[in-house]
């Protein structure tokens, strides 16, 4: 019974599950020229200088390509409930916090139910291109269920890309199976490479029939993670690394993690904010460990970016998420529903639909390039952040009152760079907008100079103006990047002419609520 010693509460460090961290090391070698939009190549429509075989793998993957995430959908199936480690940001009553957010419970499926669900969703959402297994525990702590699901899906729906998320503890044992299963991408959650720091995040691991605690546990975990990453890179499997940023524990250290994973071939690094509140019942939630602010997160991501591309669009989706990233249609596809819904899986229809999406993407890129040429002669040190309400497709097409999140872009004379998203409470519920929710929204986008929406009511409009955030609705249903750049040009003109005094906007809060129901 010595085994029970040292397991702290039951906030578990489920490595794989999702809550932890998602540091996606973006593609190496993807440097977009400064004058053409974002530096992060993971996020562009264009191939940039990515090798073709890698571009082919990522261009329709919403998690690996920021640009693709506006157009393509992914789904997760919750077939893997068990976990083999405990994370202090995870409460095992809920899904793993490494890939999903704390406080979310997914409906567990058998591999057979999972395949049925994949086919039903592929029928209903032709732009669904990626199937991931990310818990609710650790995919590789449930190898039989995980690989059975992949095998069945590969047979039934060969055009869907397979992806797997893990805490890495069991990874070196499954490399050959991963290669054989035709898995395209693997995400490993790595929060620390220094066991002293790891020990503050992981109270214990279960490894080769024993429970390890403290530094021993963290050392084994780190070794296995890095070894697994190296083995996958050698075999040409794309690896993204997720890291959860925990202020005062691993925030500084993540720069080291970034270097270490880059050196071992990680393709994308995704640094996610710790989401922590007492009601999650996690160790960190209960001991008051806070998550980072929007600015702290951005500063760290920027610090890592020169060295490696950073993923900034991760939504910490739930283990049974369905749909475009940022939306969640999982409720439409409950087990009861999928048994009733029809399956008309048809490769040709899906391909035709996806070709149309590709055309749309190309149009939006051309529009942006034209706008950017206007900047060719101009340089200014001014950078501003703006928030955008969108439902996808790269358009400003959501009402302020219906937005579940805002996408944030950094505008400069180099272009519009996507830097993240801010989840908010929907302002308009049952037709009413509420003061309380409005002030949370304002706190969430407080670092932005303007918010771009398809439509906005009079009351939130005047409150936003009072808070110093300009509501912009004249670009409804137009391309995000092009429109924000047009707005930015006129902003710069006003600064030049002295009509407007440019001021820094300060920081914003990352929403920490329970997030149980919303996507």
């Amino acid at each position, binding site marked *: *019974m*010595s*085994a*029970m010693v040292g*397991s*702290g*509460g*039951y906030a*578990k460090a*489920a490595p794989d599950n999702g809550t932890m961290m998602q540091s996606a090391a973006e593609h190496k070698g993807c440097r977009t020229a400064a004058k053409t939009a974002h530096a992060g190549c993971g996020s562009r429509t264009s191939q940039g200088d990515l090798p073709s075989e890698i571009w082919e793998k990522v261009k329709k993957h919403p998690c690996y390509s920021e640009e693709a995430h506006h157009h393509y959908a992914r789904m997760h199936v919750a077939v893997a*409930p*068990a*976990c*083999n480690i*405990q994370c202090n940001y995870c409460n*095992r*009553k809920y899904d793993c916090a490494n890939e999903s957010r704390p406080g979310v419970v997914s409906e*567990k499926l058998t591999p057979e139910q999972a395949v049925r669900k994949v086919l039903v969703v592929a029928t209903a959402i032709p732009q669904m291109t990626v199937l991931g297994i990310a818990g609710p*525990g650790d995919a590789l*702590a*449930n190898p*039989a269920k995980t690989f059975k699901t992949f095998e069945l899906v590969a047979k039934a729906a060969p055009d869907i890309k397979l992806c797997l998320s893990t805490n890495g503890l069991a990874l070196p044992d499954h490399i050959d199976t991963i290669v054989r299963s035709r898995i395209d991408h693997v995400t490993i959650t790595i929060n620390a490479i220094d066991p002293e720091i790891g020990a503050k995040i992981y109270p214990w691991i*279960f490894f080769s*029939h*024993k*429970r390890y605690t403290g530094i021993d546990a963290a050392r084994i975990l780190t070794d296995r993670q890095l070894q697994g990453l190296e083995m996958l890179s050698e075999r040409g499997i794309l690896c993204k690394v997720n890291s959860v940023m925990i202020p005062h524990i691993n925030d500084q250290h993540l720069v080291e993690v970034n270097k270490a994973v880059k050196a071992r071939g990680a393709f994308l690094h995704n640094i996610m904010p710790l989401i922590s509140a007492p009601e999650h019942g996690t160790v960190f939630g209960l001991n008051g460990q806070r998550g980072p602010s929007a600015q702290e997160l951005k500063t760290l991501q920027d610090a890592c970016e020169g060295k490696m591309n950073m993923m900034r669009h991760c939504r910490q989706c739930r283990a049974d998420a369905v749909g475009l990233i940022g939306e969640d249609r999982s409720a439409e596809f409950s087990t009861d529903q999928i048994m009733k819904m029809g399956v008309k899986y048809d490769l040709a229809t899906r391909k035709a639909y996806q070709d149309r999406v590709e055309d749309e993407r190309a149009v939006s890129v051309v529009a942006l390039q034209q706008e950017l040429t206007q900047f060719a002669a101009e340089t200014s040190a001014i950078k501003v952040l703006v928030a955008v309400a969108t439902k996808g497709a790269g358009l400003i097409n959501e009402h302020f009152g219906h937005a579940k999140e805002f996408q944030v872009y950094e505008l400069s004379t180099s272009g519009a760079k996507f830097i993240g998203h801010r989840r908010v409470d929907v302002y308009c519920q049952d037709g009413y907008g509420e003061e309380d929710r409005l002030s949370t929204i304002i706190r969430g986008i407080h670092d932005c100079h303007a918010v771009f929406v398809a439509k906005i009511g009079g009351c939130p409009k005047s409150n936003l103006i009072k808070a110093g955030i300009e509501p912009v609705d004249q670009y409804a249903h137009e391309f995000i990047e092009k429109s924000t750049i047009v707005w930015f040009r006129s902003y710069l003109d006003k600064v030049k002419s002295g009509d407007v005094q440019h001021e820094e906007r300060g920081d914003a809060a990352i929403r920490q609520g329970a997030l149980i129901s919303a996507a």
Partner: protein
Amino acid sequence: MPFKIIASQCTSCSACEPLCPNVAISEKGGSFVIEATKCTECIGHFDEPQCVAACPVDNTCVIDTSLPRYQAPA
């Protein structure tokens, strides 16, 4: 002394199930249960009871002291 699982604490994560050397653990009515007659506390197989070591919830896989032989004689 066989182990038992306290059903109200079990998250049904299934982590313990495949680890039991005696195949004593199975799912029943939404939570996992140990068949007392099969459990050997892992003695002879492993140094630690596997269900205890893997379970994410402390004090969920515990010695079952309710069996008659652990009761003080009346």
